[in-house]
Protein backbone atom coordinates (compact mmCIF):
# COMPACT_ATOMS: atom_id res chain seq x y z
CA UNK A 1 0.00 0.00 0.00
CA UNK A 2 0.95 3.66 -0.27
CA UNK A 3 0.57 6.38 2.35
CA UNK A 4 -0.42 9.72 0.88
CA UNK A 5 -0.53 13.09 2.59
CA UNK A 6 -1.95 16.35 1.30
CA UNK A 7 -1.38 19.93 2.34
CA UNK A 8 -3.29 21.96 3.24
CA UNK A 9 -6.07 19.79 4.59
CA UNK A 10 -8.51 22.68 4.20
CA UNK A 11 -8.48 26.34 3.28
CA UNK A 12 -10.79 29.30 2.83
CA UNK A 13 -9.76 31.59 0.01
CA UNK A 14 -10.94 34.79 -1.60
CA UNK A 15 -12.11 34.81 -5.18
CA UNK A 16 -9.46 35.75 -7.69
CA UNK A 17 -6.61 34.24 -5.69
CA UNK A 18 -4.76 30.97 -6.31
CA UNK A 19 -4.05 28.00 -4.06
CA UNK A 20 -1.39 25.33 -4.48
CA UNK A 21 -2.14 21.89 -3.06
CA UNK A 22 0.70 19.50 -2.31
CA UNK A 23 0.59 15.69 -2.51
CA UNK A 24 3.36 13.58 -0.96
CA UNK A 25 3.67 9.79 -1.24
CA UNK A 26 5.82 7.59 0.97
CA UNK A 27 7.14 5.57 -1.98
CA UNK A 28 8.07 6.15 -5.60
CA UNK A 29 5.11 5.83 -7.96
CA UNK A 30 4.81 6.18 -11.69
CA UNK A 31 1.36 7.67 -12.02
CA UNK A 32 -0.28 10.31 -9.87
CA UNK A 33 -3.80 11.61 -10.43
CA UNK A 34 -5.78 14.63 -9.31
CA UNK A 35 -9.55 14.50 -8.76
CA UNK A 36 -12.21 17.01 -7.82
CA UNK A 37 -15.19 16.14 -5.65
CA UNK A 38 -17.84 18.84 -5.59
CA UNK A 39 -20.07 19.06 -2.51
CA UNK A 40 -22.15 15.92 -2.10
CA UNK A 41 -20.95 14.55 -5.43
CA UNK A 42 -18.68 11.82 -6.76
CA UNK A 43 -15.11 12.18 -7.96
CA UNK A 44 -14.13 13.59 -11.35
CA UNK A 45 -10.66 13.11 -12.78
CA UNK A 46 -8.89 16.41 -13.46
CA UNK A 47 -5.55 15.22 -14.83
CA UNK A 48 -2.83 12.62 -14.78
CA UNK A 49 0.58 13.80 -13.58
CA UNK A 50 3.60 12.00 -15.01
CA UNK A 51 7.12 12.65 -13.84
CA UNK A 52 9.22 14.28 -16.53
CA UNK A 53 6.37 15.26 -18.83
CA UNK A 54 3.41 17.60 -18.91
CA UNK A 55 0.22 16.56 -17.22
CA UNK A 56 -2.60 15.11 -19.27
CA UNK A 57 -5.91 16.89 -18.68
CA UNK A 58 -9.42 15.50 -18.96
CA UNK A 59 -12.13 17.17 -20.97
CA UNK A 60 -13.32 20.32 -19.24
CA UNK A 61 -10.09 20.97 -17.37
CA UNK A 62 -7.27 23.17 -18.71
CA UNK A 63 -3.69 23.79 -17.71
CA UNK A 64 -4.16 27.54 -17.24
CA UNK A 65 -6.79 26.92 -14.57
CA UNK A 66 -5.21 23.85 -12.94
CA UNK A 67 -1.44 23.87 -13.50
CA UNK A 68 0.25 20.74 -12.19
CA UNK A 69 3.84 19.99 -11.29
CA UNK A 70 5.47 16.58 -10.89
CA UNK A 71 9.11 17.21 -10.02
CA UNK A 72 9.88 13.66 -8.82
CA UNK A 73 8.33 10.24 -8.23
CA UNK A 74 6.98 11.02 -4.75
CA UNK A 75 5.52 14.53 -5.06
CA UNK A 76 3.05 16.56 -7.08
CA UNK A 77 1.25 19.88 -6.79
CA UNK A 78 -2.06 21.12 -8.17
CA UNK A 79 -2.76 24.84 -8.34
CA UNK A 80 -6.30 26.16 -8.52
CA UNK A 81 -5.91 29.51 -10.27
CA UNK A 82 -8.05 32.63 -10.25
CA UNK A 83 -10.56 30.96 -7.97
CA UNK A 84 -14.29 31.50 -7.97
CA UNK A 85 -16.95 30.09 -5.60
CA UNK A 86 -17.62 27.35 -8.16
CA UNK A 87 -14.14 25.96 -7.39
CA UNK A 88 -15.24 25.12 -3.84
CA UNK A 89 -14.65 21.38 -3.70
CA UNK A 90 -12.54 18.63 -2.22
CA UNK A 91 -9.39 18.05 -4.26
CA UNK A 92 -7.85 14.59 -3.96
CA UNK A 93 -4.67 13.09 -5.26
CA UNK A 94 -4.21 9.40 -5.86
CA UNK A 95 -1.44 7.07 -6.95
CA UNK A 96 -1.42 3.79 -8.78
CA UNK A 97 -0.04 0.67 -7.19
CA UNK A 98 0.63 -2.84 -8.32
CA UNK A 99 -2.17 -3.95 -10.58
CA UNK A 100 -5.07 -1.55 -10.88
CA UNK A 101 -5.40 -0.42 -7.28
CA UNK A 102 -5.38 3.29 -6.62
CA UNK A 103 -4.74 4.81 -3.21
CA UNK A 104 -6.17 8.18 -2.33
CA UNK A 105 -5.00 10.99 -0.15
CA UNK A 106 -7.32 12.45 2.50
CA UNK A 107 -8.24 15.40 0.30
CA UNK A 108 -8.00 19.18 0.52
CA UNK A 109 -11.23 20.96 1.35
CA UNK A 110 -11.41 24.29 -0.41
CA UNK A 111 -13.99 26.99 0.18
CA UNK A 112 -13.89 30.05 -2.05
CA UNK A 113 -15.73 33.13 -0.85
Amino acid at each position, binding site marked *: SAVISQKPSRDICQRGTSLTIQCQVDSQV*TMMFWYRQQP*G*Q*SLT*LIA*TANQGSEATYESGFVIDKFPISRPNLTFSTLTVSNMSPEDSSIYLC*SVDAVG*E*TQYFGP*GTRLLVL
Partner: protein
Amino acid sequence: TQLLEQSPQFLSIQEGENLTVYCNSSSVFSSLQWYRQEPGEGPVLLVTVVTGGEVKKLKRLTFQFGDARKDSSLHITAAQPGDTGLYLCATHPSGGGADGLTFGKGTHLIIQP
Protein backbone atom coordinates in the same frame (compact mmCIF):
# COMPACT_ATOMS: atom_id res chain seq x y z
CA THR B 1 -16.39 7.87 -21.72
CA GLN B 2 -17.98 4.91 -20.00
CA LEU B 3 -20.88 6.00 -17.81
CA LEU B 4 -21.51 4.23 -14.53
CA GLU B 5 -25.00 4.38 -13.07
CA GLN B 6 -25.36 3.70 -9.39
CA SER B 7 -28.58 3.09 -7.49
CA PRO B 8 -30.01 3.98 -5.17
CA GLN B 9 -28.49 7.42 -4.77
CA PHE B 10 -29.50 7.61 -1.10
CA LEU B 11 -30.35 4.85 1.35
CA SER B 12 -31.15 5.10 5.04
CA ILE B 13 -31.93 1.91 6.96
CA GLN B 14 -31.96 0.58 10.47
CA GLU B 15 -29.09 -1.34 12.02
CA GLY B 16 -29.39 -5.06 11.36
CA GLU B 17 -31.16 -4.78 8.01
CA ASN B 18 -29.75 -6.01 4.71
CA LEU B 19 -29.22 -3.87 1.64
CA THR B 20 -27.99 -4.03 -1.93
CA VAL B 21 -26.58 -1.27 -4.10
CA TYR B 22 -26.03 -1.51 -7.82
CA CYS B 23 -23.62 -0.29 -10.46
CA ASN B 24 -24.51 -0.59 -14.15
CA SER B 25 -23.07 0.40 -17.49
CA SER B 26 -24.09 0.07 -21.11
CA SER B 27 -20.52 -0.99 -21.90
CA VAL B 28 -18.51 -3.96 -20.77
CA PHE B 29 -16.22 -3.36 -17.82
CA SER B 30 -12.62 -4.47 -18.08
CA SER B 31 -12.71 -4.57 -14.31
CA LEU B 32 -14.70 -2.82 -11.62
CA GLN B 33 -13.70 -1.46 -8.26
CA TRP B 34 -15.82 -0.63 -5.22
CA TYR B 35 -14.71 2.09 -2.83
CA ARG B 36 -16.08 3.42 0.43
CA GLN B 37 -15.55 7.02 1.43
CA GLU B 38 -16.17 8.28 4.94
CA PRO B 39 -16.59 11.98 5.73
CA GLY B 40 -13.29 13.84 5.77
CA GLU B 41 -11.36 11.05 4.10
CA GLY B 42 -10.43 9.85 0.65
CA PRO B 43 -12.03 6.76 -0.91
CA VAL B 44 -10.71 3.40 0.28
CA LEU B 45 -10.71 0.41 -2.04
CA LEU B 46 -12.95 -2.45 -0.91
CA VAL B 47 -12.62 -4.88 -3.80
CA THR B 48 -11.76 -5.29 -7.48
CA VAL B 49 -13.78 -7.69 -9.63
CA VAL B 50 -12.46 -8.83 -12.97
CA THR B 51 -14.13 -12.05 -14.10
CA GLY B 52 -17.76 -12.25 -15.23
CA GLY B 53 -19.87 -14.02 -12.62
CA GLU B 54 -17.27 -13.46 -9.94
CA VAL B 55 -18.37 -13.26 -6.31
CA LYS B 56 -16.14 -11.87 -3.59
CA LYS B 57 -16.84 -11.61 0.11
CA LEU B 58 -15.39 -9.19 2.61
CA LYS B 59 -16.87 -10.02 6.03
CA ARG B 60 -20.53 -8.90 5.76
CA LEU B 61 -20.06 -7.44 2.28
CA THR B 62 -20.69 -9.55 -0.82
CA PHE B 63 -19.71 -8.25 -4.24
CA GLN B 64 -20.99 -9.74 -7.48
CA PHE B 65 -19.88 -9.08 -11.03
CA GLY B 66 -22.45 -9.78 -13.72
CA ASP B 67 -21.85 -12.57 -16.22
CA ALA B 68 -21.71 -10.04 -19.05
CA ARG B 69 -19.45 -7.71 -17.02
CA LYS B 70 -21.86 -4.81 -17.45
CA ASP B 71 -23.18 -4.68 -13.90
CA SER B 72 -22.14 -5.26 -10.33
CA SER B 73 -23.78 -5.29 -6.94
CA LEU B 74 -22.73 -4.84 -3.35
CA HIS B 75 -24.80 -6.59 -0.70
CA ILE B 76 -24.38 -5.80 2.99
CA THR B 77 -25.77 -8.22 5.54
CA ALA B 78 -26.83 -7.06 9.00
CA ALA B 79 -25.75 -3.46 8.41
CA GLN B 80 -24.02 -1.63 11.22
CA PRO B 81 -23.60 2.11 11.88
CA GLY B 82 -19.93 1.73 10.93
CA ASP B 83 -21.05 0.87 7.39
CA THR B 84 -22.28 4.45 6.95
CA GLY B 85 -20.54 6.20 4.08
CA LEU B 86 -20.46 6.93 0.37
CA TYR B 87 -20.11 3.78 -1.73
CA LEU B 88 -18.58 4.32 -5.15
CA CYS B 89 -18.04 2.04 -8.09
CA ALA B 90 -15.26 2.89 -10.51
CA THR B 91 -13.54 1.58 -13.60
CA HIS B 92 -10.58 2.37 -15.82
CA PRO B 93 -12.17 3.75 -19.01
CA SER B 94 -9.44 2.56 -21.32
CA GLY B 95 -9.40 -0.89 -19.80
CA GLY B 96 -5.89 -0.56 -18.52
CA GLY B 97 -4.53 0.31 -15.10
CA ALA B 98 -2.37 3.20 -16.20
CA ASP B 99 -5.09 5.80 -16.34
CA GLY B 100 -7.41 7.54 -13.95
CA LEU B 101 -10.68 6.15 -12.76
CA THR B 102 -14.21 6.97 -13.87
CA PHE B 103 -16.56 6.94 -10.89
CA GLY B 104 -20.27 6.45 -10.56
CA LYS B 105 -22.28 9.09 -8.71
CA GLY B 106 -22.22 6.98 -5.57
CA THR B 107 -24.70 5.68 -3.01
CA HIS B 108 -24.95 7.66 0.21
CA LEU B 109 -25.66 5.04 2.88
CA ILE B 110 -26.78 5.85 6.43
CA ILE B 111 -27.23 3.10 8.99
CA GLN B 112 -29.26 4.28 11.93
CA PRO B 113 -28.63 2.67 15.31
